[in-house]
């Protein structure tokens, strides 16, 4: 049976026996398995039992119309490639069929060569569809596998190393001289940086937008902002950077998840601090403009080059001009973008090398008008 499974299966549905016969004859010896059906109902049964890769459907048949057969096959398994057979006068319906998911159409009458060609092309299409599905599944498995490896084989051992280093330093605190303490400090910092990097990888791998949406509620964007500000405050203080805030006129709530939004703001503010000179200034502006909450973060740091700017939201990317001393991993922005887009928002950036960058986040505001229906179906929930 293994042999048969490797062959492509073709089903031809047509009420004219002569068409069925000649089509079968044309494909004879091509190595394909062929079955035929004289009407739509029989054809649909065969789709279930014969499991075809490719189905030819005559549009004009007594009983169930070809268009309906097409729709039913598509609903059953949209990876099956369908080709409609049409008479001269029905090119319009061929177009309609293609809108309904048919891959191609074959006008009657057709030559054996035309039939062979369209069969070959359609089976190639089917192969590509199946390959895409396999690749997608593999990619998903790889992602999960990678997450597992990262957390078990990398993160846990490194954590144990760091814990023992902590213990060693603690036990030897009375014995170590300044030079030795400095070496321990370097070790700790490098390991901590690695752990941070691993954590952000895990974050990017495991951020599940759909799961995020399950927790959506009406929240104030200001709550997320102040949480984020609190979080980055120590970082800013260490570099003596002032974050100047302009909060104006934010009346309406948004529909989202407070914690993940503040994570996005922490990433963006954190970047602004990271890439600013010591003693610099960052402007954080929050305002509501025409049903949108606009959050802008403007720094006067090192800026982003035009080559880099199109990649910064992609993940696993960091500009090549950035000084190596800076601990950055280019993942925070990708996560932030995912989070913001899950909120039906957008993030954009304008930047000039050496002058600084401005990140602008837009989030749709929820109208708080006393409309009872808006309570049942908040904005942003309807589309998914």
């Amino acid at each position, binding site marked *: 049976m293994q042999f048969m499974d490797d062959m492509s299966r073709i089903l031809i549905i047509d009420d004219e026996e002569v068409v069925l016969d000649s089509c079968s004859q044309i494909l004879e010896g091509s190595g394909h398995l062929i079955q035929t059906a004289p009407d739509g109902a029989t054809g649909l049964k065969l789709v279930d039992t014969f499991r075809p890769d490719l189905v030819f459907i005559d549009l004009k048949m007594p009983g169930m119309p070809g268009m309906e057969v097409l729709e039913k096959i598509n609903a059953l398994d949209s990876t099956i490639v369908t080709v409609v057979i049409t008479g001269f006068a029905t090119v319009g319906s061929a177009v309609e069929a293609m809108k309904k998911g048919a891959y191609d159409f074959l006008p009657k009458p057709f030559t054996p060569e035309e039939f062979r060609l369209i069969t070959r092309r359609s089976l190639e299409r089917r192969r590509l569809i199946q390959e895409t599905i396999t690749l997608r599944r593999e990619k998903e498995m790889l992602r999960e596998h990678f997450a597992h490896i990262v957390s078990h084989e990398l993160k*846990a051992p490194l954590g*144990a190393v760091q814990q023992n280093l902590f*213990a060693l330093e603690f036990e030897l605190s009375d014995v170590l001289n300044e030079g030795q303490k400095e070496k321990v400090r370097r070790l700790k910092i490098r390991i901590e940086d690695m752990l941070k990097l691993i954590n952000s990888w895990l974050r990017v791998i495991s951020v599940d937008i759909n799961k995020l949406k399950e927790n959506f509620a009406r929240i104030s964007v200001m709550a997320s902002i102040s949480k984020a500000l609190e979080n980055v405050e120590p970082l800013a203080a260490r570099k003596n950077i002032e974050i100047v805030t302009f909060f104006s006129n934010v009346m309406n709530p948004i529909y989202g998840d407070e914690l993940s939004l503040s*994570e996005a703001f922490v990433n963006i503010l954190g970047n602004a601090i990271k890439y600013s000179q010591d003693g610099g200034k960052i402007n954080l502006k929050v305002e509501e403009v025409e049903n949108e909450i606009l959050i802008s973060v403007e720094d006067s740091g090192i800026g982003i080059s035009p080559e880099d700017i199109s990649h910064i939201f992609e993940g696993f990317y960091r500009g090549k001009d950035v000084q190596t001393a800076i601990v950055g991993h280019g993942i925070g922005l990708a996560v932030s973008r995912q989070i913001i887009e899950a909120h039906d928002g957008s993030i954009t950036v304008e930047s000039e090398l050496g002058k600084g960058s401005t990140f602008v986040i837009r989030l749709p505001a929820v109208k708080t008008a006393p409309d009872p229906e808006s309570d049942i179906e908040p904005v942003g929930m309807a589309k998914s």
Partner: protein
Amino acid sequence: MKAKIMMIDDDPDFIAGIRAILERADYDVNVAYNPKDGFQALQSQSYDLLLLDIMMGRGAEGVALARKIRKDPRLREIPVLIITGVREQIAFLFPGQAVHPNFVDVDELVEKPIEPNLLLEKVEALLKASEEKKLQA
């Protein structure tokens, strides 16, 4: 009297790193490398504090153990410090913000690895909170 601490974690190296800090701070530390031995140890003598890992064995066996402890009228009085490496499962942690998973009445969660001063601070705080709860009762 020295406070008695039980630690359950399936990573012996990690246990060693925690144990050294606690013993230097003069705690009496006992350890188990899997939930089964750990539960037995908890039942065989009384402890003042439990340090518990979440991801052990085939999955979140630490959580299953915490549930068992919660069902036991005597064991659930022990304060629990959960030390975990699974950040992705507990979402985004804000540094400095205490996380109480509420597995038992007095508990707190911290991330691996943990700095000696923070560890000792959390241990002391949990012991104190548990002591105060006992006095109130």
